[in-house]
């Protein structure tokens, strides 16, 4: 339907603004449409200093979520957020997705979870996006059963002190859900718990 000015704008919104299109679940069958070749290879070819961030998505019964989609958006190692296009680069002959060319940093990753709820991206540690800012990977989580996607952030544990300073009111056990765990050099673990014990902190951007 053609958008009409919102007669009853929700609190805080100026009258006359268009009301947004409501969200709906991604459902179970996005797998042949949204994931793409090289979706988790955010770092460029031959980058000498990449990191891998991986983890599992769990539901409220601590079961794996095998039909989730994890998206990452981030700054490059210099803190630049001008990600280049080309994440879903297509072959001109076959129309198949061939993935990014590996030279330009697009800053965008998209990976479906596997049958065990596991996902992984290979990327670079982001730099501060403004002087003094604590860098992080912005994350959007989609899943069957999730009527509207969720936002969270992956902070690297080397910045834990800064993260604590950024969220002074957050209890330690909540804050920990935003910190990746270093498993070995260059390998970080970040589990996403949708519900229940150690539920991940999700954000609402106002």
């Amino acid at each position, binding site marked *: 339907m053609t958008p009409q000015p919102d007669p009853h704008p929700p609190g805080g*919104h100026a009258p006359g603004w268009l009301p947004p299109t409501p969200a709906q679940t991604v459902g179970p069958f996005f797998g042949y449409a949204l994931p793409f070749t090289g979706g988790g290879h955010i770092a460029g070819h031959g980058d000498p200093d990449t990191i891998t961030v991986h983890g599992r998505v769990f539901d409220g019964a601590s079961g794996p979520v095998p039909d989730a989609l994890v998206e990452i958006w981030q700054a490059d190692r210099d803190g630049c957020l001008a990600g280049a296009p080309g994440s879903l680069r*297509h072959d001109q002959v076959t129309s198949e997705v061939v993935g990014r060319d590996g030279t330009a940093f697009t800053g965008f990753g998209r990976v479906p979870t596997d049958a065990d709820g596991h996902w992984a991206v290979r990327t670079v540690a982001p730099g501060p996006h403004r002087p003094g800012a604590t860098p992080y990977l912005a994350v959007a989580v989609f899943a069957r059963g999730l009527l509207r996607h969720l936002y969270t952030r992956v902070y690297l544990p080397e910045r834990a002190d800064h993260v604590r300073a950024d969220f002074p009111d957050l209890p330690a056990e909540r804050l920990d859900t935003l910190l990746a765990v270093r498993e070995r050099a260059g390998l970080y673990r970040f589990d996403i718990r949708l519900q229940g014990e150690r539920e991940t902190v999700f954000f609402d951007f106002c």
Partner: protein
Amino acid sequence: MRPPTPLTGEPTQRDIDAAMAEADRRPPPDPDHPDRDYPPYRSSALRHPKQAPLPVVDPEAVELTGPVFGVTDVSALDNDLTLGQTGEPAGQRITITGRVLDRTGRPLAGQLVEIWQANAAGRYAHDLDQHPAPLDPNFTGSGRCLTDSDGEYNFTTIRPGAYPWRNHLNAWRPAHIHFSLFGTAFTQRMVTQMYFPGDPLFPYDPVLRSVTDQSARDRLVAVYDHDLSLPEWTLGYRWDIVLGGPARTLFEDR
């Protein structure tokens, strides 16, 4: 083709109707969107956070920017889902067009729009969709395009069929097309579904009815536009999409 294993001991439509009526009496935190805790959609039970989201009043530049896409991310025929196979897909050919706008009404040009859908018989080209309706060798059901300078997208496809699912006994999804959009900020990211006008399954479907405000729900339904129909070729539907996101996404100079 395998016959379906009948569900037993599952909620009936009447049970789900009662749960939907109950949810209608409990306004969601944001009337424009579904409450993630929506019991009639049973898969939501273990997948919605119990803690309130942490409000970020002054989002960082990371969330006020977002990925960009361009000519290399789509191929020219990606917006015609009836092409790319050896034959024509079965079903009613349709055209869907509309504009992608922000909440001030500004058109969003160069935006990636991705869609996926069931075939005319209501079957997805996905191994986990095992309901006994035929796959169509000439239809895979996914497409993408970039919006033009007026923020307009355009797809040619076939009208998807309704399909059964196992939320409850005799659960059928109204015909719909899944849409994915980005906007200019990561906080404008949107995944939703477009429905067809006048579908008799609307009152029975907990996914559509998870949007409990009727005017918001109406915004998920396309309109038939006779001027978009092409003689002896397609029926035309129009569906505009408004991306939300925090106010900062609208006033930030970029």
